[in-house]
């Protein structure tokens, strides 16, 4: 597999579509699928499925274009503005952090761990702290920046490592310093990957901005969602949700166009880097170093926490002292453990459901253009809809039960796995495909022997993201409508102003999330060694 990949080289990225058909016929089948979906939606709306919760497309659009359009326009601009600010700020911070990590090897591990912690921190716990520091008006932009950070950090790191080893060697032989190599070689080559990350980060920024608005912003799509929920008017809920999804989608589309242009200009591909960094078997010393680094980071975070409270004179009502949190953690570990187990169970079920459906959908979409048109737009819209918008819809349809929490988490898991599976199924090198075809294999055989194995590395990478997402999604679902688990513990304690318990729960959430992500990473590395 490695040899084949090496021979197929990377001057041009692998062709995605192997069917060379006329543009019209290529679009006909997917378009039919889209129309089919809209038709089903219209029927459902007229029939009043889910107790009138499903409305027709016309009814859903009406608030946006009717009498209230000025209100929706103002709200959309407010949200987009906050999301854009968050995107820029988060991206710049993430890019800088990745640059530092690449340029200063001693800090690389620490920065990566910190980024992982930032990613694992649940928004429900972090947002109040951000608001304390930055003030309420900057809340939405701050949460958006937080949402964006990890995507851009990871993609920049990957991009900076994308330069071929040979080029590095050439420059080192010529006597260039590390910093110069960074600026001359790595940075120019990292842009496609960075834009890849931005592509995913932009919808996340929209979701983050909307979530941040739930903390008392004066206007925005999140504010409209709240009043729509309170009024019980389904069409308002749909209108705000559709607008939220649209904002995310437009951002995604714009950046996808930018990315295509980039690939044409720079032509870097990602598969090369995964080979280099992931095939090294971890040694005992490395593992020990990882553990020590993690502990050191944890200790320094606690120190920063303590110093911040003292220096800024933060009230214990807003952020508790580390000592009180530790006291609660050590006094009632059983509570935390039980909650953690409940959350992990929810996340595991969500991961299983989400993955199964996602892989099936990806296989189906890759085999049939009609199915693709039927399913992909819905998936994309659902993925672009922020969790806080999805929740009322799902809860109305399925009820406020633990199963809805699992469903909510599953929908969040779905998208990264679906995207990963899709790109994986088209990842098989063209040369190998031609070889199998020339040898006379049937389509099914080719699928089993080539496409599936080629997809596995992508799939495990997608699963790695999905695993972390599943935990966070489970926590968010629990905090909104759950009755058990870490998210529920957090919300309950927070509502009753029991800050030590709330922060204890938040810390356990971070630890669990980071651990899951790390374990998934081990699985990913093992699969890459075997399958890539």
């Amino acid at each position, binding site marked *: 597999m490695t040899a084949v990949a090496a021979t197929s080289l990377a001057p041009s990225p692998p062709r995605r579509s192997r069917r060379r058909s006329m543009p019209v016929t290529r679009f006909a089948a997917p378009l039919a699928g889209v129309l089919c979906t809209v038709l089903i939606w219209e029927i459902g709306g007229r029939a009043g499925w889910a107790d009138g919760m499903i409305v027709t497309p016309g009814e859903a659009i009406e608030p946006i274009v009717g009498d209230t359009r000025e*209100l929706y326009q103002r709200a959309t601009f407010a949200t987009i503005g906050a999301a854009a600010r968050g995107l820029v*700020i988060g991206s710049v911070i993430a890019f800088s952090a990745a640059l530092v990590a690449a340029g200063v090897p001693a800090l690389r591990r620490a920065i990566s761990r910190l980024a992982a912690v930032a990613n694992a921190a649940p928004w429900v716990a972090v947002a109040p702290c951000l608001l304390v520091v930055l003030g*309420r*008006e900057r809340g939405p932009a701050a949460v958006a920046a937080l949402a964006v950070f990890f995507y851009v950090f990871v993609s920049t790191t990957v991009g900076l490592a994308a330069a071929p080893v040979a080029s590095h060697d050439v420059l080192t032989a010529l006597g260039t310093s590390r910093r110069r190599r960074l600026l001359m070689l790595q940075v120019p080559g990292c842009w496609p990957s960075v834009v890849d990350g931005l592509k995913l980060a932009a919808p996340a920024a929209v979701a983050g901005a909307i979530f941040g608005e*739930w903390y008392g912003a004066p206007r925005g799509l999140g504010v409209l969602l709240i009043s729509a929920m309170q009024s019980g008017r389904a069409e308002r809920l749909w209108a705000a949700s559709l607008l939220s999804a649209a904002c995310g989608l437009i951002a995604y589309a714009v950046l996808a166009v930018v990315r295509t242009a980039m690939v044409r200009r720079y032509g870097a591909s990602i598969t090369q880097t995964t080979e280099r960094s992931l095939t090294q078997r971890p040694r005992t010393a490395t593992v020990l170093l990882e553990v020590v680094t993690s502990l050191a980071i944890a200790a320094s975070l606690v120190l920063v926490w303590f110093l911040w409270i003292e220096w800024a004179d933060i009230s214990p009502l807003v952020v508790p002292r580390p000592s009180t949190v530790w006291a609660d953690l050590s006094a009632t570990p059983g509570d935390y453990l039980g909650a953690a187990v409940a959350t992990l169970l929810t996340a595991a079920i969500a991961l299983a459901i989400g993955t199964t459906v996602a892989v099936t959908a990806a296989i189906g979409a890759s085999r049939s253009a009609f199915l693709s048109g039927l399913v992909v737009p819905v998936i994309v819209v659902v993925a672009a809809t922020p969790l806080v918008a999805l929740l009322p819809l799902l809860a109305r349809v399925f009820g406020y039960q633990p199963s809805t929490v699992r469903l909510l988490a599953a929908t969040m898991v779905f998208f990264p796995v679906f995207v990963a599976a899709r790109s994986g199924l088209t990842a098989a090198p063209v040369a190998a495909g031609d070889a199998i075809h020339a040898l006379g294999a049937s389509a099914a055989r080719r699928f089993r022997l080539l496409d599936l194995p080629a997809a596995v590395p992508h799939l495990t990478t997608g699963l790695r993201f999905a695993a972390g997402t599943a935990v966070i999604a489970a926590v968010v679902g629990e905090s909104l409508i*759950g009755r058990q688990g870490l998210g529920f513990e957090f919300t309950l304690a927070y509502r009753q*102003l029991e800050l030590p318990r709330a922060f204890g729960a938040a810390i356990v959430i971070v630890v669990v999330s980071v651990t899951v992500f790390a374990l998934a990473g081990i699985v990913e590395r093992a699969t890459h060694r075997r399958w890539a």
Partner: protein
Amino acid sequence: MHPRHQTPHALDTNPLPVPQSRRTFLVNAALLGGATAFGGALLAACGSDDEESTPATTGDTDASAATAAPTTGGAPASLGLVRTAFNWTVDVEWSAWYLADSQGLFAERGVDVEFSHGGPNTPAVAQVLAAGDADVGVASDELQLIKANAAGADFVILGAMYQRSPSGFCWLAETEIAAASDLVGKRLGLTTGDEIRVDALFKVNDIEPEYETVPMSFDPQPLIDGDADAITCYVTNQPIQLALRGIDAKSAPFSDFGLKAFGDVLFASKAYVEANRDLLVAYFAGLIAGVKANVADPMAVIALLTDVYGKDVEIDAEYSEAGNPAYIALLDSDFTAANGYLSIDPVYLETEVYASYTAAGETDLPPVSELLDATVIADAQKL
């Protein structure tokens, strides 16, 4: 190990050959452009943060433009700014404040006001004040303040907008619920944290808590679907919304079931009260005037809600028209008849409200004299 290649021109090559320098130039230009964009974005962010003013400031500008500036009577020099934090979004619940602001009832007493609203995710108002983001807070009940003080805050209750908390139960007309005993064994729709109060409700009636919890969020769907026999609500909100949708529902506040509490408790930190007593007295005088204005004309605030304070929140005018009288009905008690709006009866607080909290299992309730400072509002009545 990778074989190192010898470059064709070896080491006497200019380390920056022309093609390479152009590339460096482009990279530097890109970085510079990025930095400029970043700087510009930061400036824009700071700039637009100033534009995102709270509704009150916008309302203030609109209101003072709309109403004749009360300067002819010689409005007193500004005593200061009071930032009020509400525990929910823009709603008819805060009518008195909006009316007082737009009719200049605060301004004519020398008080500038700013409002910040809450929502489902907002930090508790006690936290907002503790973080220094507001001066006067509106808490849904006293317990939040008692707990906050136990955690190290120094809050003091100054009064209450509503003499009975609007928190209560709502049930469909067909269901027979008249007293706490009727709730035994029922399926009750609760949001996170409600259980404590429901348990307290049972205990204060000397009944062992026995019911089935149906988790829910803010909309009354479980009641309509029949998943719950009764749901917790604000008696001024969900029952009216349901009635407007043609559903026959009944409701009663927790007070009727024996669990007494004030509604929309007004509080501030002791330190703030000591430092700004005159300002606070003037503020509450303005607020009391606002309450009276609302009682005199319940329809006046509706236009303010839809066009000014709530223009970004899609206020339901129909509900607001029906909700305002329901809130107004909670303003009065025998004590306010004698002592004026917003005032709290310390005896009632100690005997009835504290009893409810004790029944809820709360220990270490502070003495009423420490928790309540009724003098500020008593002085405000005279202004």
